[in-house]
Every structure is written in structure tokens, then in C-alpha cells.
């Protein structure tokens, strides 16, 4: 796995995992205990005003969408705290900034001592909202599909003429960068490009935009696809982009690191593991309220792995339920083959590779030494 990137604020790990700092959970898992996830990745809604061509949420529609009320979202956090979940990232399958629960959710998580991160397009992330949440956040990652306004609008919205969405996002990102400096906040601010092979001409402008904005990092990652290849990603084409990606990394300066998720880009569409252990440590919850082990299984197709809906049942009861552990056990059993039964490169990929290597004694997970990396509670 890749090494940490040294930033002004500490070591940043984006292309690997941090299980070495949660060996208490690894040991308990190995002993067969029912462990609480270290981290939950979720959304407060399935709604989104963007229409990104790379969006995996297109493949994540379940039977029904429940509206997540603020009270349910806050109870969810109470349950996370009660069982020992250490962080929550608002990413998953919707644009959480659109939810009325967004601000109170983040503020309540901070009160409970749960670290919070958020990925957003920043279109509806206006100064008032930024002021309310930024002091409580560990990281914010802005989805920026390209470095030029026209390409950005083509990929994330209706067409190249709609550059107003780019202008709006950039204005809000700049506001956050300024606020962080003004208040000396510890939050990490980054932009992310989801690289589809045909977008190679956007790599260098994207890296330059990261430098111009003065964010802490600009990361370029692969595009996930489902096992039916709905998005039509040809993973063999990534290799032809290695030169451009290396060139982009070389543009890093003291303030802004340009980071390429090499491990995921090189791993392509076939994981090294057959069993899928990652969800026990990094659980995903849909903006529909659906609790399933991974976002890979939100679609109705994977209903056998659906555990429940936290707007209908308390999360702590779902976590304790037989069906939660039955779903997790299924993914750890010979009945499940991660190489053929789910989409490519899930959010639990790095963790799953490490846990599989641990289980096979290929490489045991050892306790981390020295200063903890940034965002240590986000696996």
C-alpha cells in the first residue's frame, strides 16, 4: 500500500488504510466478537442536484426512499456513540448538504466526540452553512470533476454552457479556505477528481486548480463500476494515463499536495480478495435510510444483504440483530465472491485487502507506531 503524504499539518493517508491504529477492533474481530464499525460512511438524503457522469449512486437505488428527519439522524449519532463508532463521513449516495439535518447532525456529532467528514459539490454550501459546520469538521472533500469551468459543467451538470455551477462551487471553496486560515481551523480541505479514462485532458488543469485554490490536497481517483459494467469503465486504459498522473503529482507545493490513488487505479476491476471483511469495520448507510454492509449492495438487486432502515428501527437494535450479523457472516463465507458478486473498488477496498492479507497471514496488521496520521478515525 502507498505511503502517507506529508503535509503542513501531518501525515495524510488517502491511498491506504489506518487499521494499524484500531488494532483493538482487529483483535476483537479475529477473536470472533461482534465488533462495532470504526467508521460509518453515509448520506442524509438520496437527493442531489448534480448529474455527474461518474456517479455510482445511479446504481444504488433501493426499493424505497425514506425521508431522514433530523430527530432520526440525531438518534443515529447517539447510537453510534453508544456502541463506539469513532467517525462518520457524509459521502455515500446523496448530497447531504441539501438535508435539513445537515448542520444539526454535524454539530451533534462533535458534541458526542465523533469525528465528521463530508464530501460535497459545495453548490448549496453557502457561507452561513460553512460558518456553522467548518469548526466541527475533520475534513471536507469537494467533488471537482475538472479544472476548467466548461468541462466541469459538462461532466457534473447539463452542458458546457452551465458554468454557473463551477463558479458557485469555487466561490464556496474559496470561502472555506479563507475561513480556515482566518480562524486557524484544523479541518483538512481537499478537492477530488473522479477520473474516467476519457477525461485525461482534465488531469493537469485539475491539479492547477487545486494549487490556485490553496486547498490542502487535490486527489485523483479511479471510477468505480458495478459488475454489469453499467458505466462502461475500461480499467485497462488507466495505464496510458500514468505519465500525466505522475506529472500532476510533481506539481505539488508546500501548501497543496497533488495525490493520485495509485493503488486503486492499478488494482483495476478485480480485487485480490474473495471474502469481503471490510464492512464490519467501515459500514455504509444509504441516504434512503437503508442499512446494508456496503454501498455496493444498496440496489434492490442485493436485497438479501439489506439489514433494515434506521428511520424505522433504532440503529443500535439493527446492529445487535441477528440479520446484521447474518449479512456480515455471509460476506465472510464461501457463498460470497467479491470478485464476481459486487462492483469494483468499494470504499472498503483498502481495508478489505488488509484484512484479507491478515486472515491469510500474508501480512499481519500491526499496531501503528509514532505520531498518528491525520483523520486517524477514518479508515
Amino acid at each position: 500500500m502507498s505511503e502517507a503524504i506529508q503535509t503542513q499539518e501531518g501525515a495524510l493517508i488517502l491511498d491506504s488504510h489506518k487499521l494499524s491504529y484500531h488494532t483493538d477492533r482487529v483483535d476483537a474481530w479475529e477473536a470472533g466478537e461482534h465488533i462495532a464499525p470504526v467508521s460509518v460512511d453515509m448520506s442524509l438524503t438520496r437527493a442531489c442536484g448534480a448529474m455527474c457522469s461518474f456517479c455510482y449512486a445511479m446504481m444504488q437505488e433501493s426499493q424505497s426512499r425514506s425521508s431522514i428527519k433530523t430527530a432520526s439522524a440525531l438518534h443515529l449519532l447517539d447510537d453510534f456513540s453508544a456502541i463506539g463508532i469513532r467517525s462518520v463521513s457524509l459521502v455515500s449516495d446523496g448530497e447531504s448538504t441539501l438535508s435539513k439535518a445537515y448542520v444539526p447532525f454535524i454539530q451533534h456529532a462533535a458534541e458526542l466526540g465523533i469525528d465528521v467528514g463530508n464530501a460535497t459539490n459545495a453548490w448549496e454550501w453557502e457561507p452561513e452553512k460553512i460558518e456553522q459546520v467548518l469548526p466541527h469538521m475533520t475534513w471536507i472533500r469537494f467533488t471537482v470533476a475538472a479544472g476548467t469551468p466548461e468541462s466541469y459543467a459538462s461532466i457534473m451538470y447539463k452542458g458546457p454552457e452551465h458554468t454557473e455551477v463551477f463558479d458557485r462551487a469555487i466561490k464556496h471553496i474559496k470561502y472555506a479556505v479563507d475561513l480556515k486560515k482566518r480562524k486557524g481551523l484544523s479541518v483538512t480541505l481537499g478537492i477530488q477528481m473522479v477520473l474516467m479514462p476519457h477525461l485525461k485532458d482534465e488531469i493537469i488543469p485539475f491539479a492547477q486548480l487545486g494549487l490556485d485554490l490553496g486547498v490542502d490536497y487535490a486527489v485523483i481517483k479511479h471510477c468505480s463500476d458495478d459488475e454489469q459494467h453499467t458505466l462502461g469503465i475500461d480499467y485497462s486504459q488507466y495505464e496510458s494515463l500514468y505519465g500525466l498522473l505522475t506529472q500532476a503529482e510533481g506539481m505539488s507545493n508546500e501548501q497543496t499536495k497533488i495525490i493520485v490513488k495509485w493503488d486503486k487505479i492499478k488494482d483495476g476491476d478485480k480485487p485480490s480478495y474473495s471474502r469481503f471483511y471490510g464492512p464490519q469495520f467501515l459500514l455504509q448507510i444509504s441516504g434512503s435510510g437503508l442499512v446494508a454492509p456496503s454501498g455496493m449492495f444498496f440496489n434492490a438487486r442485493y436485497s438479501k444483504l439489506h439489514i433494515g432502515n434506521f428511520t424505522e428501527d433504532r440503529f443500535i437494535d439493527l446492529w445487535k440483530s441477528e440479520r446484521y450479523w447474518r449479512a456480515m457472516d455471509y460476506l465472510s463465507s464461501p457463498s460470497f465472491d467479491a470478485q464476481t458478486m459486487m462492483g469494483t473498488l468499494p470504499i472498503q477496498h483498502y481495508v478489505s485487502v488488509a484484512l484479507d492479507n491478515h486472515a491469510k497471514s500474508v501480512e499481519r496488521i500491526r499496531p501503528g507506531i509514532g505520531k498518528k496520521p491525520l483523520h486517524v478515525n477514518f479508515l
Partner: protein
Amino acid sequence: MSNNLCYASIKTPTPEPAWCQLSNEARLVLVNNTISTNPAFQRNTLIAVEAKLDGQVIISLVEAVSADKRGALLLDLESFLKASIDQGLVVWLEPVGDRNSLRNLRGIEIEVKS
């Protein structure tokens, strides 16, 4: 408690020749006839709509089943079909397409019969 890490390197079973030699129609009849023998899976609740050569059995739920019930129902069904017909069978439900009207303008379609 015991862990199940012992399965890390075990190969996932694939269908035996007896399943593979059947036609698509014959496989589907076999699956639905088998389902009908078990009162837990009444035909008016679920029905197999596709039974593929590679062991994938696609199920359609006749009535909606809540999120807290459908997981157990379908895992029970898969276990039953594995035990009754072939260890290589895998149950999936019919997929649902994206309901986001904006994203649908992209024209990307989710295969409803996979």
C-alpha cells in the same frame, strides 16, 4: 466465539454439470417447483424469473417486503435452493433503476434483467 476467517481462501462453489446441462426454461421450472414445496416461500410472495447457467437465480417479489424482512427471506431462500438443488446457486432480486430525474438525462440504464 469463533471467527470465520478460515474461509478466506476457500473457492466459492459453482453449479454442477446437472444444472448446467438444463435449458434456461428447465432450470426456471426446477427452481419454481422447488420453491413451491416450501411453505415459507409461498408463490404469491416471490417467484423466480430467471435461472442462469452460472447459477444466478433472479427473484421477483410479488409484494413489497420491508427492509427488515427481505434480507432474511432471501438468504433463507438461497440456503434452501443450495441445499435442494445445487450449492452453486446464488439468489439476487430484480434490480431497480435510478429514480433521480436529473441523472436519468444522462441516459445510463440499469439492467433490470441482469
